[in-house]
């Protein structure tokens, strides 16, 4: 629960991962029904409305969490745009989330742990 409300990097990362997975899961049936609709299998009006509106509003939350993580971790603008676009493409959400965590956040956390280990401990002793 503290990860949901925490103001540090860990909280931002957890919220981003949560929203990335929610949005990434939601967009798959949305596109599935959309292509069925295009293919003339059926209308699927109710499904498309529910999934479309749900994804639209959850995507706003996803944008907020991704932007907050980008501010916390000082990601670069192309990467931020990639994170934003990933919420609109089925499957890409999971890939981008994986690379964000492994390539961007984990090195930062490791570096911060080293910084804290070398610089905070003398004052805390």
């Amino acid at each position, binding site marked *: 629960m503290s990860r949901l409300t925490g103001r*540090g*990097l860990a909280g931002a990362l957890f919220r981003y991962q949560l929203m990335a997975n929610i949005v990434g899961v939601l967009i798959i049936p949305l596109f599935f029904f959309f292509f069925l609709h295009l293919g003339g299998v059926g209308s699927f009006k109710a499904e498309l*409305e529910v999934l*479309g*509106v749900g994804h*639209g*509003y959850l995507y*706003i939350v996803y*944008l*907020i969490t991704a*932007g907050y993580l*980008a*501010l*916390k*971790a*000082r990601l670069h*603008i192309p990467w*931020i745009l990639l994170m934003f676009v990933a919420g609109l493409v089925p499957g890409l959400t999971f890939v981008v989330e994986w690379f964000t965590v492994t390539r961007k956040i984990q*090195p*930062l956390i490791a*570096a*911060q742990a080293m*910084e*804290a280990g070398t*610089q*905070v401990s*003398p*004052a*805390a*002793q």
Partner: protein
Amino acid sequence: MRERWLSGRAISLHVAVLVVVPGCAVAAWWQINRAQDGNQLSYLYSVMWPAFGILALTFWWMLIHTDYETVGLRGMRRQAMELAATPTPGEATSPSPPNIAPEAPASAATEEDPELAAYNARLAELAAQGPKTWRRRESVVVRRAP
């Protein structure tokens, strides 16, 4: 000031926000018109598009005011290299926590004053708070000389 608002990064942000925000406004207007024509779904979308526009403005402002020179992974590495190059404390180019932290325990080691210990704990807490953001700009005034 000039570095903040006119760097290449800032200008790309300005261009992005100048494209995205009018785009969101146009899309919102389009959805409002569709809603008035009787499209139920468009009522929701006419709220959503302004929300996207406001988000774009918010992130533009926050990204402009984020000091990329002194924080983040690259900033931390650069600071570490600068500290290694110039070990004299009190340098105006590096933020205060790494400099203040080693100074305090020198006097604390001689006498175990609880007040001083609390002060040191507060310093350690400040040092552990991590990078500064646009929210705490009083700590971000440290900038490298142009």
